[in-house]
């Protein structure tokens, strides 16, 4: 009975505290004309950029990180990076930790774009502007650098159509999970362009396991569903390489296109396993994200929910060497596995 009383009093206290503090909670502070209040700086050396990155495991993200770091060095900013380790919970903690460190601006490449809303809101309430470097966003943000995914899908369809030159031949699509709202545009662009060119995308299967093995399995499903498939497009690099290996194992003559421009894809194109890929520019995405923060923090330029599309390119065996040389010159990284 005594403990029931204690529990009752504790619950009443909790409800009271919750009510009082909930009524007192504030929404994001907005400035006149929308957006957020940002502290501007006179000296670049006073600025620290915090970067929260999905993972350092993949080349794509290593290049984003290199771009952010190089831009910070070039612009004279201090730089702090935290790896999310592909964990959405850690990502939220990391962004809050950067706020606690009182960084001047944050660049984030989110493992789960849907999960950054409250953490970004907290940063902005503290006067820290946030730029998303690729993947996507949820809720208000200053700017989002994002590849022109729809165009990338269109380029893939155009490439397959130009090689097949026969609209009776069916195509296949290894699509992305529905949660990747922005990246899903790679598939949407492909479907729209294929339809426009008169091709039938007879199999549109989601790669449930985003990996080379997942690509291999999905390609086998496409081969079972559409045995006479003539060309396939996979919306991510590792999956595309796995799919190309499944095609090779089947002994069939099927064209394949990937997306990303990962070193594994460059090697697969060189080996004649993959026919083409759509190249994103992760280094530029990272570099430009910091430049945008510089414009906000040093010049007071207004950015609110601005989406900055980044161009994509088709890589084929014909232009591969020239593009690889360009990547090496720009980023210092080889386009091929080292």
């Amino acid at each position: 009975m005594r403990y029931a009383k204690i529990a009752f009093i504790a619950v009443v206290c909790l409800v009271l505290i919750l009510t009082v503090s909930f009524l007192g909670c504030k929404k994001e502070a907005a400035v006149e004309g929308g957006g957020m209040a940002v502290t501007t700086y006179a000296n670049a050396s006073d600025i620290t950029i915090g970067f929260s990155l999905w993972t350092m495991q993949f080349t794509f993200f290593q290049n984003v990180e290199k771009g952010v770091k190089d831009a910070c060095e070039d612009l004279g900013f201090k730089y702090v990076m935290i790896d999310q380790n592909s964990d959405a919970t850690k990502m939220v903690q990391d962004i809050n930790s950067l706020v606690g460190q009182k960084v001047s601006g944050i660049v984030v490449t989110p493992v789960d774009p849907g999960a950054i809303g409250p953490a970004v809101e907290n940063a902005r309430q503290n006067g820290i502007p946030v730029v998303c470097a690729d993947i996507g966003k949820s809720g208000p943000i200053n700017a989002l650098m994002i590849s022109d995914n729809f165009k990338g899908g269109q380029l893939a369809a155009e490439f397959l159509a130009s090689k097949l030159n026969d609209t009776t031949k069916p195509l296949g699509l290894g699509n992305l999970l529905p949660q990747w709202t922005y990246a899903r545009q790679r598939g949407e662009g492909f479907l729209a362009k294929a339809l426009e060119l008169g091709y039938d995308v007879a199999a549109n299967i989601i790669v449930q396991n985003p990996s080379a093995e997942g690509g291999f399995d999905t390609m086998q499903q496409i081969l079972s569903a559409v045995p006479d498939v003539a060309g396939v497009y996979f919306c991510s690099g590792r999956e595309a390489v796995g799919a190309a290996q499944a095609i090779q194992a089947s002994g069939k003559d099927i064209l394949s296109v990937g997306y990303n421009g990962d070193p594994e894809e460059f090697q697969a194109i060189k080996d004649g396993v993959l026919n083409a890929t759509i190249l994103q520019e992760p280094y530029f995405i990272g570099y430009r994200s910091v430049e945008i923060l510089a414009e906000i923090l040093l010049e007071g330029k207004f950015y609110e929910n601005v989406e900055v599309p980044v161009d994509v390119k088709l890589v084929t065996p014909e232009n591969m060497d020239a593009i690889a040389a360009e990547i090496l010159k720009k980023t210092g990284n080889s386009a091929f596995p080292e």
Partner: protein
Amino acid sequence: MDDFRFRKVKQNLGVFWGNFGLPLIFIIIVVVFSLSNPSFATRYNILSNFGFAAYVGIAAIGMTFVIMTGNFDISIGSMLALVAVLGSSFMPKTGGVIGVLATLAIACSLGFINGIFVTKLRIPAFITTLGMLFVFRALAFIYTNNVPVYISDRFWLYIGNGKLFGVIPFPVLLMGICYLAAYLVLRKSPVGRYIIAVGTNARAAALSGINVDNIKILVFTLLGLFVGISSIVNSANQGAANPGLMGQNFEFQVITAVVLGGTALSGGNGSLGGSLIAALIVTFLGNGMGLMQVNSYWQLVATGLVMIFAVSLNKLKFYLLGQGEY
């Protein structure tokens, strides 16, 4: 006589280490990081870490109960995701308070189902919860078509992100209340004694009139409840419930905290305070290394080594107490 005095000193050291070993490790971690990085010891960072520890810390209460009965549950990561997507999708129709209560009811039901499988169908906890790990995750995917559910309800968001009087993260208070309630249940109520009895010797407990099945069902249901609270905190932190990404490796984090906290996997012996301190150790360690720019792979190495070190020091307690379990 000398031998007697030596044993007495050993026992006192054992008692001291049993009570203060983990808190000591926690304090050392906080002091080392505070001296190494000025950003660590700020009020904001310390309070944020306490808030984030609630995610693992609250679920660790339920897992402590379950492990004390000699069982464990590896389905809680998937359960967390399923509960979050179900609860947050009901929210727009039910409103905040009813939505939270409904979410907790769903979580309890899932824990109850696990308990029924383990007790009435006599399926080992490992097999039951391994199966449910797949079932719960798949149901979360099917229900949402793998599309995250965004949360806009202010009450729900407040539970994970609110600050009491603008300072203390609300999850800290929530975690404190959960631990207080769990302490009262475990140490001051007959149910707590039954849990310990079942974990120590289920047959003897049954012979002394305790309904062992009901106690096991109760602890699995309680675990569901605490996972439900963690689920609300976590989804509120993220502003969304993602069926695929929420709760990944959650079961390992929680079981790690409970075992690190001194609860014996064989059952019977457990410590709620130990689970709490262990959850804090894991959170503060991760944050401290992140602030010090330690490479993420080295962070995993260091976390693993600290855990092994802490558990071996826990074994030291048994040696000093002369219990021969080291």
